[in-house]
């Protein structure tokens, strides 16, 4: 090739791994791909592998990235669960109130549950190979109106993703759910088309939403994951040793990202408080009340997905 493909250290022989994601480089998962993953792969492979990262959706949105890694035009992607319609088990990433806290989520997605799901995922999508599960974000509610307890949701307008689970949560809490594209969210919050939205604090900071929001309610109602997925025929075309290097680096990167993410939550909270926002962590009683109020959403999910009871039980049992 004539392009960046020939830019490796070993004089043009390096194989390039293009890694695409849809976050800007400050997200812990994007940061570890730039850092630990790239360094480890390039060093351990002795320069035979080169990693190029493409953030902020420059290679496409999540659906494009997923299509790209399936047909081999992108070697590796870090994406959420866009495939959950075709493979409903991936709905687990959006399952409400599944974890005790973020540490618990880390234990689940860097442990045995993840390994078992990897096998099932690769059977379902033989053209890809899933390597690791990193943190996406723990979703919190933010608003311009007072939002410090369970009852404050009533009558407020929240921008929610166009997904029945998310919309169901807001509506069961007594709020109205509005679908507004992410690109218009900032100005919709600024002008008051909607009062609030739900996203991880990492997004509240990185998208600048804190400039137009006053309250953060740290519900962590959904702790979503980001999957590191490679194209299978690309992987199979490498040597055994190279494959191991990539897999181990991806898993180490995911562990690092979970730790970074957990550390970043405290930093983000501090930053938001410093910007004058009121950040409230629900008491245990409030958390129970939130769970009870939104139980219909979970019940409906359980009724529609026969695999779910077993898997959610297994996840809850993880120490």
């Amino acid at each position, binding site marked *: 090739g004539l392009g960046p493909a020939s830019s490796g250290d070993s004089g043009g022989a390096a194989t390039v791994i293009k890694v695409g994601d849809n976050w800007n480089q400050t997200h812990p998962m994007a940061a570890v791909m730039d850092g630990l993953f790239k360094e480890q792969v390039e060093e351990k492979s002795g320069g035979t592998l080169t990693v190029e990262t493409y953030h902020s959706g420059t290679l496409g949105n999540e659906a494009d990235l997923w*299509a790209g890694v*399936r*047909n081999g035009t992108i070697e590796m992607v870090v994406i959420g669960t866009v*495939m959950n*319609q*075709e493979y409903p088990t991936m709905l687990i990433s959006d399952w409400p109130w599944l974890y005790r806290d973020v540490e618990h989520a880390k234990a689940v997605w860097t442990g045995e549950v993840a390994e078992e799901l990897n096998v099932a995922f690769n059977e379902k999508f033989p053209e890809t190979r899933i390597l690791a599960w990193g943190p996406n974000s723990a979703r919190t509610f933010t608003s311009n109106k007072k939002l410090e307890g369970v009852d404050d949701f009533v*009558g407020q*307008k929240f921008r929610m993703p*166009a*997904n*029945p689970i998310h*919309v169901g949560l807001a*509506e069961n809490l007594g709020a*109205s*759910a*509005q*679908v507004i*594209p992410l690109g218009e969210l900032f100005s919709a919050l600024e002008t008051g*088309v909607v009062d609030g939205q739900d996203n991880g604090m990492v997004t509240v900071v990185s998208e600048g939403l804190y400039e137009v929001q006053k309250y953060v309610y740290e519900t962590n109602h959904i702790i979503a994951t980001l999957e590191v997925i490679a194209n299978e025929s690309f992987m199979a075309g490498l040597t055994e040793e190279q494959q191991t290097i990539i897999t181990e680096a991806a898993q180490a990167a995911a562990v690092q990202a979970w730790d970074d993410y957990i550390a970043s939550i405290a930093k983000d909270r501090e930053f938001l408080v410093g910007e004058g926002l009121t950040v409230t962590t629900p008491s245990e009683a409030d958390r129970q009340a939130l769970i009870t109020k939104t139980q219909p959403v979970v019940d409906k999910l359980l009724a529609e997905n026969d695999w779910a009871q077993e898997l959610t039980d297994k996840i809850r049992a993880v120490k």
Partner: protein
Amino acid sequence: MTNAMDKLFRGIQILIAIFLGIMILLTFLNVIMRYVFSSGFVWSEEIARICFIYLVYLGTIDAYRDNRHLGVEMLVARAKPGAQRVLYLAIQGIVIWMMAILTIGSFTLAKQGLRDKWVATGYPVFLIAGIGVVTGASIILLALANVIKVFTAKTPILELMAPKDDPDAEFAVE
């Protein structure tokens, strides 16, 4: 033959007008719902997006037939008739090549998304990706017809390239 084609394309025009109408209706309804009933439809955004995609892909075919895709004709206009024919054939060749890529790629995407659905409406993904096949194949046919015209019809090339009269244009001006 031409008459049947005219009817077909009139049908496409009516269809895209209906799609635009639906987009407007749903978006307006959402504004009303937000204030009057303090709620919204989750599925309305997806339906509007589906309509928009169909509108663009179908409208692209129609625009190709009427030569309304924007281009620069300075060079062709100054070339001799023989060179004009060569340039025109080259243009059609490039278009056919690009649309073949769109047809094949969209077919692959449609096949890949065969069991996949959009989240809120459950609308099948292959019906979205598949519109690329329709657009690609239709424009290939139109371009092939253009190629045939070069060899059979005596029409000057610049006339073949000229934007077809838009029956709606007169309204917009006055």
